[in-house]
């Protein structure tokens, strides 16, 4: 009786124990599976990658960054060749890279990005390829317009401008460009210039012609600054701070001659354009920021030095600008050794 009762108790206990183990086991197994999925699933790596990206970008958003960044996208065809893909795929991959980099630049705080999408000289390529590029361009235009108007999208609030000799394009493409530019014209904090079909000499030539016309018609004087303002890139025409060319050629190929022949930092990189990713871009901008921090420190003096000087009313220890000798305070009275004062 007594034993039976104990036996039942023990049996029940064992069953309970087994049940618990089973439950816990499945729970662990399930959660392990989940964790497994979670760790190795693309989402996590993706989110981690995105998190790291935005963390890094957050850091750099404290630093000075270039205002106008420009890309020469070279190497799409070589990329396609090296992977045995049709040419079209290479150009598509290049388009994706471009949009990613534009998005990164916008996040970092760059005001304006321009890209060399199609050169006037490219019309010499085979008809098939030119057509492919035109079609791809039209598709990308639509995509960009959609994303620029979608407030959830990182590209929201950017202005798209197509620059170049548009007379060389087909009628319908020109219509489309007009429409897209109209849709995105309110984006003020970020401008994206696509040079399609563009060469820099062509740009200078058009500016010269327009300046002459406006001089003849309205007698607008021609000066260096007015000339610069009349160029294709609106207020960013005067200079491009950072010019990046991929795939290892060390020349401009008729791009941004006016904008980058003076103060631009020019980076030539060996990677093919579709392989040019976030970290390379980040490194290049970090380098720019690092050296401009030092440059600005040298030009303006550090915050500490300035603050101290202001606090103790010490004036003009550094030569800030040239001033007239008459504007100095009067020196003490001059007395000669014989005692005669004047």
């Amino acid at each position, binding site marked *: 009786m007594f034993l039976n009762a104990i036996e039942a108790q023990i049996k029940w206990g064992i069953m309970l124990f087994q049940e618990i183990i089973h439950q816990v086991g499945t729970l662990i197994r399930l959660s392990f599976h989940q964790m497994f999925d979670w760790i190795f699933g693309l989402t996590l790596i993706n989110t981690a990658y995105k998190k790291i990206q935005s963390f890094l970008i957050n850091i750099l958003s404290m*630093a000075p960054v270039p205002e106008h960044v420009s890309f020469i996208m070279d190497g799409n065809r070589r990329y396609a060749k090296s992977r045995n893909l049709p040419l079209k795929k290479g150009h598509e991959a290049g388009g994706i890279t471009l949009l990613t980099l534009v998005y990164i630049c916008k996040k970092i705080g760059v005001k304006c990005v321009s890209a060399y999408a199609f050169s006037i000289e490219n019309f010499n390529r085979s008809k098939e390829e030119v057509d492919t590029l035109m079609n791809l361009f039209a598709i990308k235009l639509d995509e960009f317009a959609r994303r620029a108007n979608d407030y959830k999208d990182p590209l929201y609030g950017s202005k798209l401008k197509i620059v170049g000799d548009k007379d060389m394009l087909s009628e319908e493409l020109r219509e489309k460009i007009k429409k897209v530019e109209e849709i995105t014209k309110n984006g003020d904090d970020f401008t994206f210039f696509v040079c399609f079909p563009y060469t820099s000499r062509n740009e200078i030539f058009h500016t010269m012609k327009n300046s002459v016309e406006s001089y003849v018609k309205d007698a607008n004087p021609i000066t260096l600054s007015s000339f610069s303002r009349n160029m294709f890139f609106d207020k960013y025409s005067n200079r491009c701070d950072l010019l990046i060319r991929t795939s290892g050629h060390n020349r401009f190929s008729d791009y941004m001659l006016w904008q980058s022949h003076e103060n631009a930092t020019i980076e030539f990189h060996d990677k093919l354009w579709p392989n040019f990713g976030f970290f390379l871009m980040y490194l290049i901008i970090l380098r720019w920021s690092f050296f401009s921090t030092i440059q600005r420190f040298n030009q303006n003096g550090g915050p500490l030095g300035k603050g101290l000087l202001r606090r103790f009313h010490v004036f003009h220890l550094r030569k800030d600008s040239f001033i007239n000798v008459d504007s100095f305070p009067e020196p003490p009275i001059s007395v000669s050794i014989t005692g005669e004062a004047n």
Partner: protein
Amino acid sequence: MGIKEESCYLQRQSSDEECIPIAATRVPPPQGSVLKGGEVNSKSRIIKAVTESVLWDQRNTEIDNVSRSSSATSGEFWGKKMGKFESFFYRILLVMLYISYGLFRYGQYQYNRMRLRILNLIYNPANTPQLIRQDVMKLQKIPKRLAAIVEMKPVGDLGGGLKGLLNDSSELVCWTVSAGIKHLVLYDFDGVLKKNVNELRNEIHSQLSKYYGPSNVPRYAIKIPHSNKIYFNDPNTDKENENNASGGDQEKTQEKKKVSIEISLLSNRDGRETIVDLTKTMADLCASNDLAISDISMQLIDSELTQLVGQEPDLLLYFGPSLDLQGFPPWHIRLTEFYWETDNNEVTYSVFIRGLNQYAGCKMNVGK
């Protein structure tokens, strides 16, 4: 054509008030300006600059007098403001990032310097033109026109001041002659070389006689496209020429004008300003109906600018630490190859010959 005379007139008119040194007002690209060294860029100052940037809202400090379109406020990110604490946190991280990058860059710098030192030992012309020609003979092709950007270093530095600049330029001339290149463009921002053209002629003469011996110095012509002047050989020969010319010995002077190298001196004045001046000239001509607007074409502009500045160089050498074009005439660098050595800060033969080497290996495909 009328326009040519007009622009020549314009040249002569403006040549008197030209050449105000404005290099001090130019903001060079950051990397180049820091790596060039000098007193301001000592190591301790760089560390100070980096660490003090914690306390500094850099996005709102203007660097140049040219007003930027609109400055972003620091910490504004995705439209939402960052808190004070948060932005301070990120600023500290930024400084840490800077310090680690700076250390990395310092290592890279030392490595590059070491490499350059070894290269300078390997490629050493030792004032011997035969060696240079031998080096060049290995190449498949050489550029027709070579351009080089030279700059005046601070007076206190080794090879600084006007003397150093003249020395660098004349050495470059010697190498170019020896390599067999017929055209050399020397660009310096302020036009110091233009102003000291007589000193330059003397310097080139003495340098060339070091290479080729005083008795058979190669003939050279120095062209200043901006003021439309040509000088032949060194200043002492001017008098001889005059005597010859007055003696009616035309053939001899003709022979003297056959040169083995033609050197053009350019400065910032030949860049943007020349293009704007040409526009003004054309505008005046159009206003007085001497030129129709429809006649302005790419060919016309190209030929005018070739007339005013010269032809496009094939290879551009820069002897500074990171590429800085310093306002080299923009119309003339369309397809020009650039060559410079990272972290190098001297005019050396190794850069010259390696530049030619790169040019020999590069493929030209316009648009294709």
